[in-house]
């Protein structure tokens, strides 16, 4: 029989668990998706080096509804014929598929800015990668907490 004191100790411990934010996805599936993310990252980069900076990924830090999340990416670039952003890719680590959106643009865009609305399956890190005309890659990432998942499938509650 559980005494009131024991119950309170267990309840307090479960509330204080640091893994509460990441508890939605079971660890096995999380590993599979992490591998898929790495594969997608390799496909985008094609072996090239990626540096942090120049890209700005805007996402709300706390998301009530993962079904429609405003996302916007902007890249610092003069957008001239000689120096412009050629492509922008957005990848996730815990969605069923790592790819979110790929944009092809050029100097005719004027500014390297675009926005859309995405689905997010879980609290995770979202990454935006920009490919510049000189072949260099730049990235920015954002950590988000999702309260209601976009996908109600196995392994997700």
């Amino acid at each position, binding site marked *: 029989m559980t005494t009131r004191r024991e119950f309170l100790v267990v309840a307090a411990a479960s509330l204080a668990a640091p893994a509460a934010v990441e508890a939605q996805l079971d660890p096995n599936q999380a590993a599979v998706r992490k591998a898929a993310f790495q594969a997608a990252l390799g496909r985008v980069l094609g072996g090239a080096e990626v540096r942090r900076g120049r890209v700005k990924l805007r996402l709300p830090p706390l998301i009530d509804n993962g*079904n429609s999340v405003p996302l916007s990416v902007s890249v610092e670039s003069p957008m001239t014929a000689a120096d412009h952003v050629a492509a922008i890719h957005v990848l996730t680590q815990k969605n069923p598929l790592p790819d979110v959106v790929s*944009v092809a643009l050029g100097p005719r*865009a004027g500014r390297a800015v*675009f926005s859309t609305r995405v689905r997010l399956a879980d609290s995770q890190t979202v990454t935006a990668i920009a490919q510049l005309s000189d072949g260099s890659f730049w990235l920015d990432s954002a950590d988000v907490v999702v309260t209601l998942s976009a996908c109600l499938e196995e392994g997700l509650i």
Partner: protein
Amino acid sequence: MARAVVTLPPQAKRGDIVEIKTLAAHPMETGFRRTQTGDLIPRDIIRRFTCTYSGTEVFRVELHPAIAANPLIAFTTVATESGTLTFQWVGDNGYAVTETASIRVE
């Protein structure tokens, strides 16, 4: 049935950067959801969006199931000349929608 909305300024000065917002009516079914009886609902999404300015492609997007229903795509372009902008959405199950808008450049 298939509907799409495009907003952009009707006129601009030459060299100005104009903002374009597009919205297509589409469920963007992911292919990961199931019905109450457990059957997988087949994927039905828009795969590609392109914007051409007087025949030249200026912006292209590859969409994946992680894009929310009724995809919104907002971007910019340089107003180079008076002409027609053509917006095209292509997707699964033969989905194809084309919308045009004209811009006057001074």
